[in-house]
């Protein structure tokens, strides 16, 4: 599992695409928002936590279709599947690699982009914490969606259609946590709900994704 994780990380950095692309997309979405809404600081500041969350979610979505597709195209997937590593472990390693190359950079970049949307400085730790807790769930859900759509030509659009509704609870709890933090309100149930969601995804989705993978490799 460690070997696979290291290989995927190395590939993401070398191929150049996967690593920087998500971050660049995140930056562009955040830059576009004020063009659409106008430069009013009060308005931007009120939507900043939610907007940053939506942008991070879309950026995480962007890199999902490469997750299994590259290994599928060059024939590495059946070879990986016959290795002594269980498919659940393969899925977990893939999800971890996706988070390390997408979710983690996005989390770290979000506070840096905060000033563009007039995010109050007090909100930074909450935004950072909500993304750090929530983005692993996005990677896990995305891995499940990618496992479902491996063999499908032009599966990218279908992948988005399947994955986006599954992202709803994570987005709601994550953005709510960041918003309450930004407004100086008590965080309440959002934090434990978000954490529970991520842990639940971690516990269950590798099995569902491995089942889908097994069917697709048949």
């Amino acid at each position, binding site marked *: 599992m460690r070997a696979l994780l290291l290989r995927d990380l190395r590939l993401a950095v070398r191929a150049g695409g996967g690593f920087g692309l998500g971050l660049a997309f995140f930056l562009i979405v955040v830059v576009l928002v004020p063009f659409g809404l106008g430069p009013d600081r009060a308005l931007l500041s009120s939507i900043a936590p939610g907007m940053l969350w939506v942008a991070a979610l879309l950026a995480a979505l962007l890199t999902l279709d490469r997750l299994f597709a590259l290994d599928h195209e060059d024939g590495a997937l059946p070879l990986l599947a016959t290795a002594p590593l269980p498919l659940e472990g393969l899925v977990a390693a893939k999800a971890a690699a996706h988070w390390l190359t997408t979710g983690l950079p996005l989390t770290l970049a979000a506070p840096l982009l905060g000033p563009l949307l007039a995010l109050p400085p007090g909100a930074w730790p909450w935004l950072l914490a909500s993304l750090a807790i929530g983005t692993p769930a996005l990677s896990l859900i995305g891995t499940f969606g990618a496992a479902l759509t491996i063999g499908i030509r032009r599966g990218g659009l*279908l992948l988005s*259609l399947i994955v986006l509704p599954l992202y709803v609870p994570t987005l709601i709890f994550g953005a*709510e946590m960041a918003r309450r933090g930004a407004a100086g309100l008590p965080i309440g149930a959002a934090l434990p709900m978000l954490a529970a969601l991520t842990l639940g995804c971690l516990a269950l989705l590798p099995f569902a994704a491995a089942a889908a993978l097994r069917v697709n490799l048949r």
Partner: protein
Amino acid sequence: MSLWEYANPKKFTETVTPLIPWVLGLAAICLVASLIWGVFFTPEDYRQGATVKIIYLHVPSALMAINAWFMMLVASLIWLVRRHHVSALAAKAAAPVGMVMVLIAIATGAIWGKPMWGTYWAWDPRLTSFLILFLFYLGYMALWAAVDDADTAADLTSVLCIVGSVFAVLSRYAVLFWNQGLHQGASLSLDAEEHVADVFYYPLLVSIAGFVLLFLGLVLLRTRSEIALRRAAALDRRAEARAAATTGEPA
């Protein structure tokens, strides 16, 4: 004689074919009766006036929209555990019907919402949940359509249906949580089922029965078509294999 005998496609087709006209006929009778009863022979609501009568379409369709997904979940589980093809095909057949039910519920809700709340759409928890359910139906049907091999498609959509069900329930609670965070309680929401008086209640029951029968009839009809399509494909393949065997070419 066990219930599973009907899981044989041929037996299923033979059994349901004579039933379908009866089920659909009964559905039509129930729907027409409840609508006439409801529209012409119930009083107007003291608060909502005549607009309340859309309840006879809105509530049953909303009910069936959720029940259809539940039926798909059960059918998917049966497919994964017992590998009965009829079960997988019934889930496939139910999805478009369920999606249309969601659309009817949302559309009638919007029409009702305009005079009552002054808006076609509000991000009320119940409305939002239905919109999310609609997206789940879309994804499920798109996956069925995208996968070529029938058994692979059945397996993948079943897994999606199970995971989707968990996330649909999660979304429901998340949406409740989210909306309370914005507004104070669900004052906009109309808990129609819980507050209707008896005069509206009985025709509503008949209308619900009509929608259940309509759903059942449509699903049986569509399942039968799906079985016929699978059978045609299987016969094609066998004919090809036979042709290949006579010419000596590998299939």
